[in-house]
């Protein structure tokens, strides 16, 4: 276990290094305008631009620039090129929102995914299963920004059942307002995953239900409910739980960009989207790295959880 964690940590550092270099290259090798000129503003003098170039190390070689940026990232001093705000501070402000969105949606999609998947599997082949199947596939096929916008418009604007986007801190509006503002974003983000999870669970259950040990369980004379929960569901859920971890990582790491933007939640994803619109490299870099950390860490956690849930798996 300890060896496993150490190895994963080393791997993680390597992966993060590669991700950071890649991100850095995307913005520094592909010509996309001079950040110094952008920062200097439109009536800057050449001397001023030169000054900025020097101060921000734009005049140095690429590796040096990279090192400088990494140093700033790790010392927490990284600031945005466009408004010089501290990037970590901005991310810290956005993270609770992104987490609120991600965690809520993850719980929603897991719960509904399991319920619908289970129902669908139990009713396999019947009308209700087929209807659910079609609904799930429609859910999988809808782009989140489209659903989000339509939900926002029809449920928020037209019917006024929900607020028209925005995020309310619990400290500001209380838990009720907070929930009220998050219901639509959660739903919009969860729809895709509900579809995916219910489909996967359904097929897992249908696979498992034919497994020999389920027959064994039935032959024991235990109740059908117990067969379903202790044997079928328990085993069908293992891959789902691990998938859940991975998807949660992806959502936190950027999967929520579109949802956050559509509902104006001003989380990390939206911060990223806006930064990229301004070609503001430091926030892009920081968010990408943070996302990668998240994915890698959650991958590791998932592997550990997997090993706990399924004794056949050994960490290696």
């Amino acid at each position, binding site marked *: 276990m300890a060896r496993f964690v150490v190895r994963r940590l080393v791997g993680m550092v390597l992966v993060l290094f590669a991700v950071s270099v890649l991100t850095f290259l995307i913005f520094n090798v592909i010509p996309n305008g001079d950040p110094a000129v952008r920062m200097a503003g439109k009536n800057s003098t050449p001397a001023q631009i030169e000054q900025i170039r020097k101060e921000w190390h734009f005049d140095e070689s690429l590796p040096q620039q990279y090192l400088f940026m990494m140093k700033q990232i790790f010392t927490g001093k990284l600031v945005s090129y466009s408004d010089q705000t501290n990037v970590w501070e901005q991310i810290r402000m956005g993270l609770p929102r992104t987490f609120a969105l991600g965690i809520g949606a993850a719980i929603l999609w897991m719960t509904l995914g399991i319920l619908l998947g289970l129902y669908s599997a139990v009713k396999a082949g019947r009308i209700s299963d087929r209807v659910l199947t079609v609904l799930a596939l429609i859910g999988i096929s809808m782009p989140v920004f489209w659903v989000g916008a339509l939900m926002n418009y029809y449920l928020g604007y037209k019917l006024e059942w929900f607020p028209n986007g925005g995020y309310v801190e619990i400290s500001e509006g209380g838990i009720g307002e907070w929930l009220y503002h998050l219901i639509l974003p959660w739903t919009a983000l969860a729809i895709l995953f509900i579809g995916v999870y219910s489909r996967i669970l359904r097929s897992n259950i249908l696979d498992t239900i034919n497994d*020999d040990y389920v027959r064994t369980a039935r*032959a024991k004379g235990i109740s059908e409910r117990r067969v379903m929960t*202790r044997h079928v569901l328990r085993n069908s859920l293992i891959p789902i739980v691990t998938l859940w971890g991975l998807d949660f990582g992806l959502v936190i790491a950027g999967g929520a960009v579109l949802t956050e933007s559509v509902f104006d939640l001003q989380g990390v994803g939206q911060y990223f989207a806006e930064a990229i619109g301004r070609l503001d490299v430091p926030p892009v870099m920081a968010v990408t790295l943070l996302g990668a950390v998240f994915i890698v860490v959650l991958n590791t956690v998932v592997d550990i959880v997997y090993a706990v849930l*399924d004794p056949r798996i050994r960490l290696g």
Partner: protein
Amino acid sequence: MSEPILEIDHLQVEFRTDEGVVHAVDDVSLTLAAGEVLAIVGESGSGKTVTAMSLLGLNRSPNATFRGSARYRGTQLLTASEDELRAIRGAEMAMIFQDPMTSLNPVQRIGDQIAEQILAHEKLTKAEVRDRVVELMDRVGIPRAAERARAYPHEFSGGMRQRVMIALALSCSPSVLIADEPTTALDVTIQAQILERLKELKDETGTAIILVTHDLGVVADIADRIAVMYGGRIVEEGTVDEIFYDPQHPYTWGLLGSITRVDRDRGERLPSIAGLPPSLLAPPEGCHFRARCPHEFERCGQGPPLEDRGAGHPDRCWLTVEQKRARRVVDDGEIGLAAKVAVEASPEGLVDRRETPPGAPSRVAGDAGAAEDARVAEEDR
């Protein structure tokens, strides 16, 4: 022999599939007395497992139809409610499955899996259950039982897992134990151990056993009676001695011919039955074994009923007892499907049959069959 505790009467099982209706079990009647060991023998697809599963209702589904009756101590198993069945499963009738590698839940501790069954039928404290589990595991010969009860299935070898399955099956002292190919997936040496263990347990507990297998070899020692199944039907039924020493049905001969025998020379090819079992989707008219039977003649086109034709036990073959006794000897008193002469006479015919889909005999196969018919008919005269 005592009162039968299990009576199967004209059991028919059909499954509706996309391809059509599969006639898995066709008119099977059997009885099982307390403490008796009944072996059901047949190839895969012969309906033996379906028969066994039908007893416990393990293969009930909207697409399955069950006809006839199966009565366990007055309970009509085929129509029993799930609740009624549940009370019987594990407690009255327990089952051991074919593949011990997959028949245990991989993510549940062995002890818990056994305990689950005990708790389903008896009200016991945790400690009592634990003791019972350890005792059971001990009894089936699992060393360090107390410790091993905490292990997961993947930590057990195949033989050990089958012992676990046996322990599980015996945990509520059932009256009937259905063992579906309990040794097929195991090494030969382990097979013997497991069979030995089963036999001992049977003697200790007096449990009746239905042993389902494709290997006649394994039943010789343990079984009291044998039912040979082919194509969803029982083709012959009798005591061990009757089946082994006076087999009436050509299919039984074939099975006997393919028993692994220690006294046979190494390197000698094990004769096996040529051809494929019949399609259960569209079973052939008459004798199901007809297409593969070297002794087929025109009467075979109409189903021979299962009846005693003078041998003292029932079978499904039109040949007379004398004809049967004459034809089944292939070599030095050995029983086999076809006399060596016959095989040598028309090797192509057999080869051709092997490649012909069931139910659609090719011209060559037909010719060979016709030749065979002629030969048999001539002998009859």
